[in-house]
């Protein structure tokens, strides 16, 4: 719940920083791996599109002019095509907007389970899709009395669980969603 709270705080915080137009980053809308804080992402990214071209899964989609000053910046729609952590994009980013990091260090966000919609937590059935697809199974997601539990320490926010989750509520949310917590970090100059 705490995580959700701070994720909701993200947008007004970014707006108060003087952005003319709000960041497109929100639940299940993530920057690629290794992204610098959202505060300077749009300023640092030169819209060269190399991360988009190099991504073998078409996970990374460039924003168009409707995103205002964020147009041209890359975004991952976690529930559509998640990041498979191949780390090709961080290798080609020429500006350091995506910093070169290892697979386990990726923190695109944090998976948060909605215990009110998750069928396993509602004790309707025994689904363990998120657990099965997690690239860090037993670390990022483990089963606690057969119910999935996320560990902040290991979750990379890749979104494979969100993509795999069979539950979609009326608002389009999955029963496990990625909150881009780390995008709100501020820059150290």
């Amino acid at each position, binding site marked *: 719940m705490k995580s959700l709270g701070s994720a909701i705080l993200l947008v007004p915080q970014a707006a108060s920083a003087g952005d003319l137009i709000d960041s497109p980053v929100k639940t299940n809308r993530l920057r690629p791996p290794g992204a610098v804080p959202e505060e300077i992402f749009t*300023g640092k990214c030169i819209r060269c*599109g190399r991360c988009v*071209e190099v991504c073998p899964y078409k996970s990374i989609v460039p924003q168009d002019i409707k995103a205002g000053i964020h*147009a*041209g910046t890359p975004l991952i729609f976690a529930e559509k095509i998640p990041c498979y952590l191949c780390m090709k994009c961080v290798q*080609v980013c*020429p*500006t350091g907007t995506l910093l070169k990091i290892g697979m386990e260090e990726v923190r695109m966000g944090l998976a948060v389970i909605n215990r009110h919609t998750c069928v396993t937590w509602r004790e309707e059935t025994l689904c363990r899709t998120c657990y099965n697809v997690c690239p860090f199974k037993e670390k990022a997601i483990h089963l606690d009395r057969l119910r999935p539990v996320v560990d902040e320490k290991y979750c990379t926010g890749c979104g494979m669980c969100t993509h795999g989750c069979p539950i979609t509520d009326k608002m389009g949310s999955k029963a496990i969603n990625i909150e881009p917590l780390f995008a709100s970090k501020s820059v150290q*100059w």
Partner: protein
Amino acid sequence: MVNHRKKRNLGKWRLLIQTGAFLVILLAPFLNHYFQIDFIQGWYQSLGIGKLWFVSPLEGLESILVSKIIYLPLLIGMIIPILVALFLGRIFCGWICPINYFCDLSDRFGRLFTRRRFRRDRLVLSRKLLWYALMGEILLTLILGAPIFVFISPPGLIGREIMMAVFFHTFALEGVVILGVLAVNLVTRRFYCRYMCPLGALLAFIGNCRKLRVVQDQTACNECGLCDRTCPLGLNPSLGEGMSAYCWNCGECVDNCAHDAISFKWRR
């Protein structure tokens, strides 16, 4: 038509290089997307060939100014374009940029249907506008905290639209900028390139003291004025404006001079 004593072939070489450069950004998305061959990625904001990175000097400068962080690989990626501009001036515009390629093609196409070899420029402004475009672009970028003008830089947009079409079977809305730039070219040749392109302005600024220049030999010149009419940027090589910062070394005037009075010279 003027009878050429010795026809040079710079124009054909330029067409070849422009076509090759365009094929690179046209085919790279296909190779990336359908064959997972990512040897070449990107376009004229940043082009990656194997492990070699080019970064456009204007985009790189803006990224540094806005984020206020020096990232060494970015600087290294800018070295080759800056060196090229230092020695050869605004040659990227004349010989590589797909916008000028399209404009050149449309000029060649037009010549098939009209007897007039050179189109007239209907709207001529002060050339200094180019510098104000660069300064205004950088100021606006710093105020907004995002490289907004460059994100709609026409050569970059062509690359992006090709990629969008290949990857997502759609076009981005901002592609209309390309159409606008090509449209104003019909009013005045290279209108955008002459007065508005911040990237061209930066390359021109860097190349102000370039080594390769278009030089006029006044003894051989018979003042026919053909070079002045042929220049796509509306410069007057006959008045030595091939030496100015504005010239992009395309070589049209060199090609067209009937008396070998204009040539490229490497200044030591």
